[in-house]
């Protein structure tokens, strides 16, 4: 465990001293700010049936699709390219420890960025009109549920980023592949869910809940905590990390 903490500390330090991390954080902050301003104008102009915070979380796919690939692309790819990877495994540490340390460092950064992003709601905080506040935050579940959902789905998205990074020593390739996988998960899930409603196919209908990320998000924001969703994301995350461990092991040999 001591070695795992040492590795985790090293990975976090590596992220903190890298200028790329600050570029990613800036991109994230700008996109969050842009989305929020756009939604706020829309919200003020037209009547909405959902609170602002829920609408804001519905747009989480866009910053996620940008940030996760950019944060995770360097994790293994850079080590492969520089050759530090072999150096790392000359000491008694396991593949799992290395994969988990990289995973938690990136996941931690992802969550940290999202927590910081909530500061945009200070705009509709205590100093704004009470009616706006009421409309923006219909219930505490909106913020807590939305954030919890992002944290849960973030596990799988980060694991996908780690996995693609373990496949190649080219950071750009890793970034692009992660981006397209995440985009497929978001758009593909919505597409299949829509089709199941149109065609009423039972096969689609069965998996509709686990495929449509946006309907899951709405459930969480409305205070419906579905354990099946948690199990689904946790298990797929672990499976993806297992694959990453196998790939890392294979690449060394």
């Amino acid at each position, binding site marked *: 465990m001591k070695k795992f903490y040492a590795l985790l500390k090293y990975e976090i330090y590596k992220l903190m*001293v890298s200028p790329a991390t600050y570029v990613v954080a800036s991109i994230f902050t700008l996109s969050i700010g842009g989305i929020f301003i756009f939604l706020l104008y829309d919200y003020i102009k037209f009547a909405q049936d959902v609170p602002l915070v829920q609408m804001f979380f519905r747009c989480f796919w866009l910053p996620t699709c940008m940030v996760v690939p950019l944060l995770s692309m360097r994790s293994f790819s850079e080590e492969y390219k520089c050759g530090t990877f072999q150096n790392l495994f*000359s000491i008694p540490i396991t593949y799992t420890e290395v994969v988990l340390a990289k995973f938690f460092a990136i996941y931690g950064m992802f969550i940290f960025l999202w927590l910081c992003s909530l500061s945009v709601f200070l705009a509709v905080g205590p100093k704004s009109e009470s009616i706006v506040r009421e409309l923006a935050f219909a219930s505490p579940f909106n913020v807590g549920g939305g954030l919890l959902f992002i944290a849960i789905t973030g596990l799988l998205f980060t694991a996908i980023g780690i996995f693609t990074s373990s496949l190649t020593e080219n950071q750009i390739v890793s970034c692009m592949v992660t981006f397209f996988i995440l985009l497929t998960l978001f758009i593909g899930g919505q597409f299949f869910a829509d089709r199941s409603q149109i065609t009423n196919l039972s096969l689609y209908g069965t998996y509709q809940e686990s495929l449509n990320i946006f309907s899951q998000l709405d459930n969480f924001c409305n205070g419906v905590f579905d354990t099946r969703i948690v199990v689904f994301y946790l298990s797929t995350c672990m499976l993806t990390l297992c694959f990453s461990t196998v790939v890392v092991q294979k690449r060394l040999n």
Partner: protein
Amino acid sequence: MTKGDVVVVSELTKKYCRQVALNAVSFSIERGSVVGLIGPNGAGKSSILKILAGIITGTSGDVIISGCSVAENVMRAKQHVSFMPENNPLPDHLRVGEYLRFRAELKGIPTKKIRQNAEKVMRQCDLYYEARYRMIKTLSKGYRQRVGIADAMLGNSEIVILDEPTIGLDPHQIIGVRKIIDANRGSRTILLSSHILSELETVCDNFIIINRGRIVATGSLGELSNNVQGKNIFCARIGGDEQTIRENFQGVQVIEFKRSSCNEDHMIKFEAAEEAYRLLLLKISSNRELSVRKIGPVECSLEEIFLNSTRRCRDQDNVDDP
């Protein structure tokens, strides 16, 4: 295998897809010795070193390090080994001191001793005053190599494996590396791989020559020399009457007999069995008419041995695969 062997490699084979990198390689390394692993490019040196360091696994065969089988318990075996890979890749974003402390932490050195250990190796490798706070990315090639060696020397691992430690270093730095190796001679087993044969000849006690994934020769310089020559050849420089010298050398086969150009001494190159050589030595040293300036076995240089061994191996391969 003897009791004093710290590394025992038996029938080790490594295949990368269809390509055989190591073909049933077997050798052992004595505790506390400095061993040079030499071979042409692509001979399988780095594969052997990586398997010994536990980075990659062999396809078949076994490696036993300090009594631990690498195949059975790689984590335990790794605790006995420190490894500096070829080209010594280092993370650029850390300072030298930070990097060594991080490595010490990963190597399982107790928290209280990490700083002390890191400082000790930095002093040993001349990094303490000049490079302790410097970023690794700003270091010259020589300093980077020193950081790699310092990393390998961290902790109490019994075996230190250095893959091309002197590559790209200037003569002063090479002497520095030699000093570090000498300081650890006897207390640690050091396995070196290098293409600079003259350097290895100075530093190493024993040698392992590998070619095309097979061990072609092992032993000390003297043993390898005899092996290459196929017989015991000696050389003597003796002062005295030519006739008397020739009389004394009657029992052995003289290969070359010549008068030294600068003085009255005679240079004699001869072939003899160990027993005959001992008798001759007694005979000429007790003869008052002769003065023995120098006598001893003729040793080939490591370069000659290396070239001869690898050429012989190649010729054999050509015979096997017409």
